[in-house]
């Protein structure tokens, strides 16, 4: 009897290999930026990288895990404060950023025990409340400046141009790592389970998936990512201000970016962050009108492109930048009936 060894599963297609080359070129181009453009451009692009990171994390959380949190600013804040505290202890701020990710993930675990008791809308509101609690607790501590916030020590000795470039590369590096990390996660066994949970949680449980465990993993990963983003913000601004770093606006940005770009697609947050960043740059002087425009745009996107810009594009063309699926490239060459039975008990 033939063994069905002719089955061939592919994880990527030729078009995606090309797109990887293109993405690599873009990355190289971004790395070269500080040598070719003004410092003001690169320093504003740090915000773009932060947006890519937090939106990618929210996409994992809400787009795949179904966990619509509006309290991820809690972990941005925790990450930022960790860098401040570690710097006071003599740890280099760029190293401190990674500790920020660690603290965020560590605090996210007990938080998840609390927040995961809530479902749907209650979870969303609950996470916001929890983030507020983190802010209120933080401003009680005078050693981190209370309600006034605190400046970062440890980077002041550097030449401003050098420091700006360093921050840019650091933020770029973390953003690339975050996106690649999401890609790796979604290609893994956890990603398969996560995608199933995205589509139908009850069905996923029937498939043997421990949905709560997978969601908790994603919640911790997302907290760590937001911690990194908070660290970058503090390294960039050289100070932390509790009301700004724990602001719910961060959640508004994440949601806007992911909805516009395409929820449930790895590419969505990238496109959405670009759109949002461009709007921020060109329309910021419009003040209140800018915020209204954002709102109208989000509503239009939700009404006409429920899968976002990338979703609409991807469904038309079938193109994916990051192939996470499984493609059956070749079926068994022996007819089905001649093969071994499915059950041998």
């Amino acid at each position, binding site marked *: 009897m033939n063994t069905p060894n002719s*089955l061939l599963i592919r994880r990527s297609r030729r078009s995606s290999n090309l797109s990887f080359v293109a993405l690599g070129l873009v990355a190289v181009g971004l790395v070269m930026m500080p040598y070719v453009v003004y410092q003001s451009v690169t320093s504003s692009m740090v915000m773009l990288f932060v947006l890519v990171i937090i939106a990618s994390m929210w996409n994992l959380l809400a787009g795949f895990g179904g966990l619509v949190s509006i309290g991820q600013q809690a972990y941005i804040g925790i990450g930022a404060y960790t860098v401040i505290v570690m710097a006071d202890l003599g740890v280099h701020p760029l190293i401190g950023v990674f500790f920020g990710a660690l603290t965020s993930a560590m605090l996210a675990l007990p938080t998840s025990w609390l927040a995961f008791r809530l479902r749907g809308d209650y979870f969303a509101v609950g996470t916001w409340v929890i983030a507020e609690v983190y802010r209120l607790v933080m401003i009680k501590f005078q050693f981190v400046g209370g309600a006034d916030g605190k400046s970062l020590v440890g980077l002041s000795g550097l030449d401003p141009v050098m420091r700006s470039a360093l921050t840019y590369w650091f933020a770029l590096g973390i953003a690339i790592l975050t996106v690649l990390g999401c890609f790796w996660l979604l290609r893994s066994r956890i990603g398969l389970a996560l*995608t199933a949970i995205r589509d139908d949680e009850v069905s996923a*449980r*029937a498939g043997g998936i421990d949905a709560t465990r997978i969601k908790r993993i994603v919640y911790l990963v997302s907290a760590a990512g937001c911690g990194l983003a908070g660290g970058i913000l503090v390294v960039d601004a050289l100070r932390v201000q509790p009301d700004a770093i724990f602001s719910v606006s961060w959640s508004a940005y994440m949601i806007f970016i992911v909805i516009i770009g395409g929820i449930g697609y790895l590419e969505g947050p990238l496109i959405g962050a670009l759109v949002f960043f461009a709007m921020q740059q060109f329309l910021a002087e419009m003040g209140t009108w800018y915020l209204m425009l954002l709102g109208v745009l989000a509503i239009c996107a939700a009404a006409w492109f429920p899968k976002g810009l990338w979703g609409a594009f991807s469904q038309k063309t079938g193109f994916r930048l990051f192939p996470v*699926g*499984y493609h*059956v490239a070749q079926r*068994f060459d022996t007819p*089905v009936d001649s093969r071994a039975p*499915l059950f041998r008990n």
Partner: protein
Amino acid sequence: MTEPVLALRGISKRFGEVVVAEDLDLTVAPGEAIGIVGPNGAGKSTLFSMIAGEQKPDSGAISMLGRDISSLPAQDRTRIGIGRTFQIPRPFEGMSVFENLLVFATSGAGLHGHAAYTRAAETGERVGLGDVLNAQAGSLGLLARKRLELARGLASDPTVLLLDEVAGGLTEPEVADLVELIRGVQQEGLAIVWIEHVVHALTQTVRRLACLAGGRLIADGDPFEVLDDPVVREVYLGTTLTTEEDTA
């Protein structure tokens, strides 16, 4: 005597005033195929939900091969060998047919790598979805969705498979294909509990039929004797109970 693959003891469940199970006992022997009929709202699907761990009974115990599984969550019951299909198919719509099956082969059957790929593809081919393995599950029609439900149940390598109205809404030739398929896997040693309104599909497959009404099994035994039972006829009065002879 071998341990029953599935044993329900004194299962009770009510939603407010509605009794869906009352002190219900049911035993399934290894490799046995049982059909369950009963009027709409009799609690058939809820019974499956309780066996599969999606809903908890108010009281009573469920055991599998002698082990009490009453407190196991749904995903663990799948892993130890209780497969199920949903009455209204619930595929992962954004994933391909193959990926749907791969979820059950990895998380359900606990397989890795090529072994998981093989099982996913095999079960897909087996139910006749071999040509559409790469198709998005959300784009499938009703028949293909029903087949996918069945294939997903098989991919998780169950010891007992709960089929919830897999023949409903299908044409006669489609039902015939389905019956052949289910008889095939049953003959390979898989125990089957099959809820169905298409009674002739059941009578061609099972040697034991139970009728669930008012939260109780009002009859349990030889399919044709159960169908001839005056109490069963009474319960079904006004609903469509058709055997093959009736429709022919």
